């Protein structure tokens, strides 16, 4: 059995809500445990709608916030023990985020190539102009873009899909072992989603980078996930090997999620529940 890249053990997060008469704790995440091996690289998917706790879970994995109980370990190191600028920087190099809104990931007043260069200098220990440009170009090509395409461009000059790919390129500069992508395609045009999802496949298969893919879209999850968990109101209701769970979901909530995937009605797709033209009551 391979060593763990990431391991969550009974992780919970509760937010305190105090009022005049009562002090209540609102649990955002309840008792979540899972483990991702260091090898082979894999795509672990967290499926949930709003209020499921998936984004809170992402923030704990990224060490942006801490659990109220339980531990998050990266390469066996408990994140709550990370102290000092150096240790935190090392962690940030290894674990990189991708967020839902690509336009929020970039400073609108900064040219994209310059932004990539400064990230390369800061996180990738690149030295000298040539090295910086080479790394930026390499990262961009991994996502199907090139330095020529983004040279001199501002974020608003790119489409949502291109910009999200640029955000992934930025995340690749430090050569991370884990990328945490929180709803990376939900703000991207549906027709461009698959090209981004395929980038994740390439990162796993060719660059051995593991991905935590957080989404409410079962269909894209089906195409690339190795394992997954389904969350509802902070708790894991079902989990396991991705195709097995999505082909035959057992928990009622999982089944409702699957039934909500919209597809052409002429499809003779045996794994889909029959779709009728009668409205569902």
């Amino acid at each position, binding site marked *: 059995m391979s060593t763990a890249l990431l391991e969550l053990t009974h992780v919970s997060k509760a937010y305190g809500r105090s009022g005049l008469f009562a002090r209540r704790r609102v649990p955002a995440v309840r008792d979540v445990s899972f483990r991702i091996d260091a090898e082979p690289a894999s795509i672990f998917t967290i499926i949930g709608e709003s209020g499921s706790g998936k984004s809170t879970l992402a923030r704990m994995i990224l060490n942006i916030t801490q659990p109220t109980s339980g531990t998050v370990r990266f390469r066996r190191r408990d994140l709550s023990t990370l102290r000092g600028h150096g240790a935190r920087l090392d962690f940030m190099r290894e674990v990189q985020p991708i967020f839902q809104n690509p336009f929020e990931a970039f400073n609108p007043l900064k040219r994209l190539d310059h932004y990539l260069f400064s990230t390369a200098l800061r996180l990738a220990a690149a030295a000298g102009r040539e090295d910086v440009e080479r790394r930026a170009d390499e990262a961009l090509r991994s996502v199907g873009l090139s330095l020529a395409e983004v040279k001199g461009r501002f974020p608003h000059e790119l*489409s*949502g899909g291109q910009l999200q790919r640029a955000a992934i390129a930025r995340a690749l500069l430090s050569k991370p072992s884990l990328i945490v992508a929180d709803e990376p395609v939900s703000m991207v045009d549906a027709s461009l989603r698959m090209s981004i999802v*395929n980038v994740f496949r390439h990162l796993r298969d060719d660059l051995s980078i593991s991905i935590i893919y957080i989404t409410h879209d079962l269909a894209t999850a089906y195409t690339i996930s190795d394992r997954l968990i389904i969350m509802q109101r902070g708790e894991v209701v079902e989990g396991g090997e991705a195709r097995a769970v999505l082909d035959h979901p057992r928990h009622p909530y999982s089944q409702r999620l699957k039934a909500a995937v*919209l597809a052409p009605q002429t499809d003779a*797709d045996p794994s889909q529940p029959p779709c009728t033209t009668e409205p569902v009551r």
Partner: protein
Amino acid sequence: MSVDTEPAATPALSVERLKAYYRTSHFGVSREVRAVDDVSFAIGKDEIYGLAGESSSGKTTLIKAIAGLVRPPLRIEDGSIRFAFLPGRRGLHLASPSEVQRVRWRHLSYIMQGSMSVLNPLRRVRDMFVDFAFDHMGLGRGAFARVVEAHLARVRLEPSVLKAYPHELSGGMRQRVTIALATICKPDFIIADEPTTALDVIVQKDVLDMLREIQREISSSMLFVTHDMGVHAHLTDRLGIMYAGRLVEDGRTVDIFARPRHPYTRHLVASLPRIGEDRIRQGLEGNPPNLADPPSGCRFHPRCALAMDICRREVPPMTQQNGHRVACFATGATGEQPQ
């Protein structure tokens, strides 16, 4: 009730050769963005017509033009937009303010993305019903209140929602209020622009099914715009595909998905991920064109595997077969699909 063939009776909406451009002029430099460039289609009574396309396809501008929201720098350069309920006018932008007042919400209503832009954050839900619908319905206050409650029940909302402000409701509930507002006067025509894009999947399906139920009940026509092909597959009777300001294909939704003819449509249909299918789906190479400087001839030719010489020089005309139209030199004429 869906339309079997091309609408033979007067269509609910007929758009003919519509051209809507943005013209800007700064420091002596003029730019013309041809956001809608010679678009023609018709929507029948009782029909849900979907409009698909990427962000830069011009579908938002098309909606604005149809809804009469035409202000500089947007200009309708040519063509007509005829609603069955307003026969004398070639477009709502040409109607008088009193005609627009009469028509809005009673004959034509909208359901927009981000319901907050329709719902006034400073008004309670019940006051918005009064604002939007009371004058049109010609009922006394008591009778009106009863109709509103019954209509809210129709979208599965409790009467207690009437007292609430929009921010007190969840996203799904706000969209259902928006649907209720848009349908209470039983309008002839409803324009929906990405109404479910911001909603969770389970809520989205619920809202879409509800929308269709109500549409069938009140027999209105609907123009439903979204980039999400899954939504079109689930909801629409007929579907039009827009690319770079032009309509490249339209027809019955089942036909579009079963036998897509335009290369761009084929890509859209093929890239829809499905549970249970193992095939790796490819993204489309290249980027959508700059509408201020679009490619010559067929605007899709730089990204098209089937592009021929004529595609670079001439704009392909729409050809029709069994109610299925396509504008493509390679796949259009005979409906054959070269490999």
